[in-house]
Structure formats: C-alpha cells, structure tokens
C-alpha cells in the first residue's frame, strides 16, 4: 500500500466513515437472515411465522408445509411458492456476495474495489430476488379466498429492500470516491485482518450459540404458547415475575425446589473435603501397583453417563436386581429400592460420590506429589506421626486447591445439572428429587409453560453469575489471584 500518508484528505476520511457504516449495515443484514420476525418471504398466513429467510431459502418442505390444502382446493398456485423459494435462494446467494465484500473491504485498494463491484452485483441480484417475492405476493393477492390465504405485506420486505438499496448506493459511492489503484497494486489483506477473518467464523458461532440465547429472555415478558408469535398483544411486562410469588401453587413449588437444590448442593459442599481425604489416604498406600489399580477402578465411573449409572442402579437395586434376588433367595419378597423416596438426598449424594470421588481426587493426588518431600522428612525427624504429618503438611499444602474448588462449587450452588435427577426421578421420589434444573425442564419442555420457566431460568442464571463474581472476589481476597 503506497497511500499510507500521515494526513488524510477529506475524501479519504469520508471513505473511511462510509466503510464503517457500510460494514455495520452488512453485519446487521446478515443477522436478519436468521430472524423470523424480519423474514421478507413471509407474505402469507400459510407460511409459518417462525421461519427465517435462511430456512425459507434452503428448506422447501418446511416453506410449503402449510399450503397443501390451499393448493388442492385451488386457492393458490404452487408456482407462487416455488417463486418465493427460488427468490429466497437468490437472496441468500447475494448475501454471501455481500459478506465476501465485507471481508474484502479490509484489504488493499485493489481488493476493496473488487469487493465493491461484487457488492454492487450482489445487491442488484438481491433486489431482483426481492422483486420475485413481490411478484409472488401479487399472485397471492389475487386468490379467491383472501381470508384463508391471508396475504400480507411483510415488514421485513421494506427493511431488506432498504438495506440492499443502501448497500447498492454505498458501493457506487465508494467506487467513485476511492482513487484508482496503481498498476502494481496487488490483492492483499493486512496480516491483522487476515488473522481476524480466519477467526471470524468461530466468533460468529460463539455469538449464535452462546449470546443469541440471551435474546430468548424476551419470552419472559410475553404471554407465549408454543407456535405463537411475539407481538404487542401478548406483551405482559413483569406479570410472570410477580406470578412466581403471588400464585400460591407455584410459590410452594419454587420453595420446595429451592430447598431440594440447596440441600443437594449443600450436601455436596459439606462433603467436598472427602475427595481430599481420599487422595491423602490413597497416597499412604506405598505399593504403586495397588495404588494404580485403585485409581483405575475408582476413576472409571466418572466416564460413564448418568443413564448408565441409572442402569447400574437398576441392575442392582430394582425389584429384579441383585439385592432383590438375594432377598428372594433368603425367603423374602422383592423390593424395588429405586421406587422408594426416603432419604433421596442422601442417595443422590452417594451416587454422586460413587461416580465422582475418584476423579476429583486426581487433582489432589497431583497436588500431593508436588509437596516438597523434605518437609515430611523434617517432620519425621521432629517426631511427627503419620496423622500429624497429614494434618500439618499435606492438608495445608492442598488447601489452596481445595479453596478454589470449594468457591467454584459455591458459585455453582444452583446448578446441580439435569441428568442425574432426571434419570432417577419417579413418582415416589419426585417431590424430593426435583432440583431447579429439573423443575425448569419439566415446566418448560414437559408442560410447555415457556414464559414461567424462562423467568425461573433467567433468575437462576443471573444469581449464578453474581455468585461467581462474589466467589472470584473472595478468591482474590483470600489467595491474591482470581479464579475466572
């Protein structure tokens, strides 16, 4: 790039600003691709309101899922929908071109110009696609049954056409404003942008799968049933938040669920020292072979799923399991211990320990091998016994690790996970086993009460983040470095 001057001319400054605006519009345009509310192809009641432009352009079957009756009765021509489908596909291609331009706009002058030309062509193609959709809309308006077909001019249509026109104009402007590249200019990107572009797909994935979810919190403010669309009509503000406390049935549910959650997390926290003790005593076994064997056996349960753990519980403790078999053989009757709801918190804790303790101990075992052996020798010389050495050397050595893990556990007090409680749940133990995660699952997915379960999940997420921040601050104060 030869044009690296210290002082920029007004023209260059305008070009820079234009480029920034241009890229932002392009990014916004690309995001609209997956938002059903701004789908320009949604020109009829027959098209599902939850379809985005992207789905409309790649999935003909879902696009036309609702039209079969209308086509067979002759209200509409299927060709209108074929036009919509093809138009959507064309628009998606034009978006791809525009996205390519957004990347190329980071490059050298020659590259930018090429990018602008690509954008010019793409936006014209996109507008042609929009024309196709409009054509289909006009066709649908001529239907004999407007009340059934319900043609409506989508709000997204205006937005997208507007955006495409802006891109068209900007591309033209930039083509005119930018100086002609020198003959020896090459197509190239600066290193820093090249690296960014390599990373950008992953940034996009992170955004789509981790940040876009937060947009789902809006369901907490609507009276929403599966399949509805969100609109002003069903906006209810904080109704569900107050409902949570005012409705006595829900309130007692929440109290019960919170109690279960706290009890199980509390038991987990109260027994978290067990893993450390496990490691310390395991290291007292001098034979490396035996130690290896024990470690191998006790770690493997960590790698099986909770469904598998339940399967084991079933094989051992159900009415057809080993324990029942032994009882029957001694003249008793078979008992299904899994159906018994007594002491369910304790049972869950024991299963959790069976599965996890060997694994949690590994980090402490590694910690023990990191403790200076001379400390032990010195203590022995001073006459310290086995337990004194454990208590005065090993435990203080492991304490920092223990504290970090404990803080993390406290921060995660509301998140017990779903799998364990879901698989062990049955009508007899339901009231004691239902933790917050399971409650949200059963309320939202099971009963389809989406707003209320979103509210509960939302509160849980916010409290968890707050707890994590507190734990982080506590760690900074105690140990001088943060955990996050």
């Amino acid at each position, binding site marked *: 790039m030869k044009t690296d001057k210290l002082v920029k001319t007004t023209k260059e400054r305008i070009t820079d600003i234009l480029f920034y605006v241009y890229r932002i519009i392009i990014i916004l345009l690309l995001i609209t691709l997956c938002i059903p509310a701004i789908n320009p192809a949604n020109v009829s009641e027959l098209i599902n309101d939850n379809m985005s432009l992207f789905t409309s352009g790649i*999935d003909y079957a879902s696009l036309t899922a609702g039209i079969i009756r209308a086509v067979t009765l002759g209200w509409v021509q299927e060709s209108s929908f074929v036009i919509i489908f093809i138009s959507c596909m064309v628009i998606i291609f034009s978006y791809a071109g525009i996205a390519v331009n957004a990347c190329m706009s980071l490059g050298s002058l020659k590259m930018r110009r090429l990018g602008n030309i690509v954008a010019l062509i793409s936006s014209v193609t996109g507008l042609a696609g929009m024309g196709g959709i409009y054509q289909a809309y006009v066709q649908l308006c001529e239907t004999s049954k407007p009340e059934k077909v319900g043609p409506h001019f989508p709000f997204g249509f205006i937005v997208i056409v507007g955006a495409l026109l802006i891109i068209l104009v900007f591309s033209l402007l930039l083509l005119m404003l930018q100086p002609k590249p020198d003959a020896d200019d090459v197509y190239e990107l600066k290193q820093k942008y090249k690296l960014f572009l390599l990373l950008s797909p*992953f940034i996009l994935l992170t955004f789509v799968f981790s940040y876009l979810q937060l947009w*789902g919190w809006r369901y907490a403010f609507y009276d929403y049933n599966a399949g509805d669309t969100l609109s002003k009509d069903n906006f209810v503000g904080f109704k569900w938040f107050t409902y949570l406390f005012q409705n006595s049935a829900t309130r007692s549910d929440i109290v019960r669920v919170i109690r279960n959650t706290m009890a199980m997390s509390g038991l987990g926290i109260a027994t978290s020292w067990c893993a450390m003790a496990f490691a310390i*005593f395991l290291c007292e076994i001098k034979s490396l072979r035996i130690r290896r064997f024990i470690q191998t056996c006790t770690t493997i349960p960590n*790698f099986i799923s909770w469904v598998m753990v*339940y399967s*084991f519980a079933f094989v051992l403790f159900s009415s057809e399991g080993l324990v029942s078999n032994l009882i029957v053989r001694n003249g008793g009757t078979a008992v299904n211990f899994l159906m018994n709801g007594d002491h369910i918190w304790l049972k869950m804790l024991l299963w959790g320990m069976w599965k996890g303790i060997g694994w949690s101990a590994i980090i402490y075992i590694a910690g023990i091998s990191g403790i200076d052996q001379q400390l032990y020798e010195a203590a022995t010389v001073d006459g310290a016994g*086995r337990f004194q050495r454990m208590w005065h050397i090993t435990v203080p050595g492991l304490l920092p690790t223990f504290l970090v893990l404990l803080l993390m556990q406290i921060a995660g007090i509301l998140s017990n996970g779903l799998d364990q409680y879901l698989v062990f749940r049955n009508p007899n133990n339901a009231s004691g086993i239902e933790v917050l995660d399971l409650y949200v699952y059963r309320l939202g997915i099971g009963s389809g009460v989406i707003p209320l379960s979103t509210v*509960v999940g939302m509160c849980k997420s916010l409290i968890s983040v707050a707890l994590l921040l507190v734990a982080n601050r506590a760690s900074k104060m105690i140990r001088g470095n943060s955990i996050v």
Partner: protein
Amino acid sequence: MEINSAKKLKKLEGMSSTPKYRTRMSDIVFEIVNHTFFLVFALACIFPFYYLFINTISDNELVRIGAITLIPKGIHFRNYLSLTNVNDLGQAFKISILRTIIGTALMVGSTALVGFLVTKQEMWGRSIWYRFMVITMYFNAGLIPWYLNMSMLGLTDNFLGYIIPGIVAPYNIILVKTYIESIPAELEESAYIDGATYMTVFRKIIWPLSKPILATIAIFGAVGNWNSFQDSLILMQNDASLHTLQHRLWTYLNEANNLAAMMQGANGQLSASQQAQLLDSKTIKYTVSMVTVLPIMFVYPFMQRYFEKGIMLGAVKG
C-alpha cells in the same frame, strides 16, 4: 558438656525407641484398614460393570430367576447377536457413533485452529475476541432460551444440532492456547522468515507439536459426545430416528420401570403378557447397557495416559 550431650543423645534415643514400637503396631492396623477400605471401594466401583457383564453372557433362564450372583453360568453370546433384532437400536448406535466421530473431529480441528489464532498478538482485536469466546463458559441463558434458540436456528430434529454447537469449546480453547504458548516461539518465527503463511505454520509446526494436548481434548470430547443425553432428549423430541444410544437406553429402562411400578401397584397382579414382556426385556436391557458402556471401557486405558495431564492443565488458569 560431655555428660550433657550424652544425656541428650540418650533422651533422643529413648524418645525415638519407645514410640517406635507403638507406631509400628498402629501402622499395621492403619495399613490394614486403609488397604481394606480402598480395595472395597475399588471393587464397589467396578462390580456393577462386572455384574452387568456376567448377566449378559449367562444363561437367560438363570438370569430370569435371578440365579446369577458372582459367577457366570451357561456362558453364551447370543444376547449380543440378538440385539440386531431390537428395533431402532442399530439406528441409535449409528447416530451415537456418527456424532462422536464427526463432532469430535470438528471440535478438535477448530479448537486447534482457534487456539493457534488467539496466540497471535498481531490479530485485530485479539484479546477482545478471545474473551468474547472464553467468557461464555461462565454464563448461559438457561435451558428454555437455549432450546428456543436452537429451534429458531432449525437445529431441532436435525442431526446438525449435535454437531455445530460443539464446534467452539471454550475450555478446550484455553487448554490448547496455553499449550501452544509453551512451544518455543523461535520455531514459528523462523518459518515466517522463510516465507511461510499462517496456515502453513499451523499445519506443519503447531499441529504436529500440539498432538499431546489435542489427543487429550479429543478423548474427552469423544467421551462427552458418546455420553451426552440431554441434547438428544430435548432437541430431538419429534424424531426418534435421531435419538442417541444413551437416550434409547433410558427409554428401555423407563419402560421396564413403568411395568415394574404397575406390578408393584397391582400387588403382582400383572397379566401374563405383561410379565413376559418384563422378563424378556431384562436381558435386552442389560445387553444394551453393556453395549453402551463398552466403548468407554475400550478407550479408558488410552484415556488414563492423558487425563491426569488434562485435569492438571485445567487447574491452572488459561
């Protein structure tokens, strides 16, 4: 002076000699108790695997009446062959294997690339993007927004719903980044001087050198994929052909449990066909369980080499 030191010596000897006997006695007791505890616990951890296994290979009639306790009797492997007749099981197996292979391969490849890219100081906005990705470990919007988001993206009842969300794995990115930072920078620099591009350096230098950490995350990723049950349960509600093996096993266990509950409620008054169904399902259930857990047991010896490294790397902050 001399007397004094001699006294001291005597005192020292006395101190060490008398308790020595006592510690030795208590040592023996301690050793026995300690060994016993750990051996019993170790056996408790592997016994379910063993018990399940001997039930799948023993004579089905003996299994039905509950005669198998510790030793397999009438060994045969027909149960495993008969699994081919169980509906939908092959499909579930296929889905589990496919998601494990594809999901893990994509996760490892992209994690390696991202881990490499975020070590490049010259990248535009490097630390912002790195934090943008890593911070997602610590929050989520909740189960329902997640589900609605996946549904909006069209990933419900879609095999890609297993694969795409797992491509960016923040925790693994931290592990790989930390590892790559420990590789001497001179190796890369000399390659750049020789005119290598970023991708060449990644393929020829970074990828081969970070194989140990990539193997670690691959194994953890594969186990996670194989074991994951929640996404199958929540995302694939309407398409049973996409259920994973874990999900299928859970369905079987639940069916059996419902029947058992009916049996309990009706005081054992179950129709003959229901009883037969319950008993027939027993060996099938056990065998399916065994098939579900076998892959884990096969890779476990390989994992052991890596997982201590993995957990230790995880303990230090990225």
